[in-house]
């Protein structure tokens, strides 16, 4: 198993513990523990799969198991995007392995990137979303719990399947998807009416940064992607859980709301800031106009983050402890990210 995947699994396990300890009890905690544990085990199986085909089969089984969890969406609706993801990944593997013109490898690169986006639930394959749905059955589970490990596995396997030229094309497609998700996600988080939907768009925006990091085929890009995924799993997801998700909490402008907004926007000294610095450095090394576009895109985080921070209301008791822990962890990772990066072999 990749060190990066092991670390992301550990993040996911920590977020599950956080959900059990600090999130408002919208569903029985025992059910959440069982479903979250099963999801974690399935994700670990995908990460540990010794061959790409086995990982894709594991992904399919995980999708069906998640669709079987009771939610607001129909069983078939839950499986649309994951089904497409599995089909795209399988087709990409076929194109990568077949003999023929170089164009086949390019198609494989596009298929792998599109399959990754569909599996996680990013544009242009956003999963249908209902803010009232339990977290275990929600697309947010793909965005912030299962998705990071799946993405790390697909990116690692892609480098084994594709030739060097096609690998570069894969990176370029990932950057393209990343920019689209950054722009659409951050504007959506700012302007959409429903606060729950705004949270979902904010996850997509963060994923835009992560995809761009994966696409920048330099060490700084991978480091940035890992830190962004840290902020998704141990920053945005816990805050989303604490927020009550539906946006029914009264909007407040206390210092805690501004702190949360700063953490969500990737301001210093939070982990998101270190991720953005690494991403801009990697982009500058690769192709400096890309850094300019990324920097402009990062400005779009501010309005949406302020909105989401204010929507948190005033956390009390257990939720307040949870928010404090999340902020502390993100500050620690922002000030000294080296142990996280070293543990992932980056």
């Amino acid at each position: 198993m990749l060190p990066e995947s092991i670390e992301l699994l550990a993040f996911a396990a920590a977020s599950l513990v956080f959900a059990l300890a600090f999130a408002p009890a919208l569903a029985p905690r025992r059910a959440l523990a069982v479903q979250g544990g099963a999801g974690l085990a399935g994700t670990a199986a995908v990460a540990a799969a010794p061959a790409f085909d086995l990982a894709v089969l594991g992904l399919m089984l995980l999708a069906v198991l998640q669709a079987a969890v009771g939610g607001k969406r129909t069983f078939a609706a839950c499986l649309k995007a994951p089904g497409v993801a599995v089909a795209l990944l399988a087709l990409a593997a076929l194109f990568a392995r077949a003999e023929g013109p170089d164009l086949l490898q390019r198609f494989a690169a596009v298929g792998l990137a599109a399959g990754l986006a569909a599996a996680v639930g990013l544009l242009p394959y956003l999963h249908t979303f209902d803010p009232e749905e339990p977290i275990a059955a929600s697309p947010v589970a793909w965005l912030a719990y299962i998705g990071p490990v799946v993405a790390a596995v697909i990116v690692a396997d892609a480098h084994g399947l594709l030739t060097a030229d096609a690998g570069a094309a894969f990176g370029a497609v990932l950057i393209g998807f990343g920019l689209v998700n950054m722009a659409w996600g951050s504007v959506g988080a700012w302007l959409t009416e429903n606060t729950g939907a705004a949270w979902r768009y904010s996850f997509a925006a963060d994923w835009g940064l992560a995809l761009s990091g994966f696409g920048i085929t330099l060490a700084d890009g991978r480091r940035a992607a890992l830190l962004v995924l840290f902020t998704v799993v141990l920053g945005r997801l816990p805050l989303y859980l604490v927020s009550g998700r539906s946006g029914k909490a009264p909007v407040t402008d206390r210092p805690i709301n501004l702190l949360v907004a700063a953490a969500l926007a990737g301001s210093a000294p939070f982990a998101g800031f270190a991720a953005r610095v690494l991403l801009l450095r990697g982009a500058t090394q690769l192709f400096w106009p890309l850094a300019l576009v990324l920097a402009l895109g990062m400005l779009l985080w501010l309005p949406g983050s302020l909105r989401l921070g204010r929507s948190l209301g005033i956390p009390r008791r257990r939720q307040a402890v949870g928010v404090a822990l999340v902020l502390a962890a993100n500050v620690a990772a922002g000030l000294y990210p080296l142990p996280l990066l070293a543990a992932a072999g980056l």
Partner: protein
Amino acid sequence: MVEAASGFVAWLGVSLVVLSDGRRGLALGMALGALGLAGVSLPAAEPIGAIALVAGGAVAAARRFTAGPAGWAVMPAGSTPRLVLCVAGGLLALWVGVAVMTGSGGALRFAVMSVVGLTGARALAGENASVVQTALALLAVAIGAGAGLAPHTLIVWTYLAAGLVAAAVTWLPDRVQRAA
């Protein structure tokens, strides 16, 4: 000749899955698709791999035969776009798999490409749990068959896993519980 016939059977099976809304049609499509994919996989999979694919497909087909919307419901009213999809998808897969791609295993490439593409489309467009489950089960068998093109040494495990996943996908309940 056997491989070419198996490839055609696989396409016929997946076309039935795309064109049917009833449990009998879906079950027959599942069985034919798995049989065809096992046939094209035989040179790479050897008997044990092919048996795993057929067994997984048979279990999935048996489950679909006993649960789901009643009857055959093959090509119900309004299914012309699906018919066009099956024919066009099959022709495209045949052209890419046999003419664009080179080397041996053309039937395997055609069968895997047509089954993966058409089951993916069915999963995207399906509104019924039994339809989507059947499409995903056949997709799992196709993923297993596609491993025959890979140079790795875990190929037998992939066939076994594909058969198990195909069986599991159709036997899993479509809802465990209704949460608030």
